[in-house]
């Protein structure tokens, strides 16, 4: 634990135990999404599915990166991950992004993907709201993740024809915002 770092956050008025619970729940959401997206990506086949595969893969890898970036902050603040993977899965901040009953239904797949990203966007907005001006490091991390989650949402939303967002698929390395936390 980074004792003074935690003290500073507490002094700023943040309920650190509550924040830690949120960070662990979001870490769970990221790792479980990485798992469920693996299944979704595998099933994105055929004329419609293949076109989605690349962004689903980028979102999958970036979600895993988010998990990796969150873990050090959890421990810095004196928290920890549950010892049981089952417990960790079940405490996720977002519902499982399960494969639709009909895995050839690409619209259903997209709906699962965009709903997962929307849950993440809400979750990190919540963390940003709780930490802004108080816990600078967690805010910076949550904002970096939020930037990537918003792009993921936009990619899938555009495939659903909900309207343009001005984004394009990732060019260059993954996690352009969160990368600085992965060194």
């Amino acid at each position, binding site marked *: 634990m980074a004792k003074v770092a935690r003290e500073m956050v507490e002094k700023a008025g943040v309920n650190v135990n*509550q*924040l830690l*619970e*949120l960070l662990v*729940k979001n870490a769970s959401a990221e790792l479980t999404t990485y798992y469920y997206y693996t299944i979704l990506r595998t099933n994105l086949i055929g004329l419609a599915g293949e076109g989605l595969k690349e962004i689903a893969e980028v979102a999958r890898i970036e979600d895993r990166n988010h998990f990796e970036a969150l873990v050090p902050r959890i421990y810095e603040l004196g928290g920890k991950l549950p010892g049981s993977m089952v417990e960790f899965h*079940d405490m*996720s*901040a*977002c*519902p*499982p992004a399960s494969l639709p009953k009909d895995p050839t239904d690409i619209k259903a797949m997209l709906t699962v993907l965009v709903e997962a990203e929307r*849950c993440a*966007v*809400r*979750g990190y*907005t*919540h963390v940003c*709201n*709780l930490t802004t001006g108080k816990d600078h490091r967690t805010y910076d991390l949550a904002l970096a993740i939020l930037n990537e989650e918003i792009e993921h949402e936009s990619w899938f939303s555009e495939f659903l024809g909900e309207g343009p967002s001005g984004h394009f698929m990732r060019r260059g390395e993954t996690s352009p915002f969160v990368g600085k936390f992965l060194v």
Partner: protein
Amino acid sequence: MPARQITREELKQHDGRKGSPAYIGYRGLVYDVSESFLWMDGRHQATHLAGTDLSGELGQAPHGADLLQRFPVVGILLDPRQES
């Protein structure tokens, strides 16, 4: 509109813990969020509790009240003045 009238004390008892249903109040209505993955054990995003009136808190949430439409309305939340 649901006919059942629910007092704040009744609402408090439906806190989603120990097998009890998870009810939340919002602008005079009571919603049953028991089936929501995001309300397990009567808690939502570590900061909100079932069994309470969230009319004030929802305005600060990163989502609108439209999400409540996914859940059944189980009653009308009585104003404390009506309760007496």
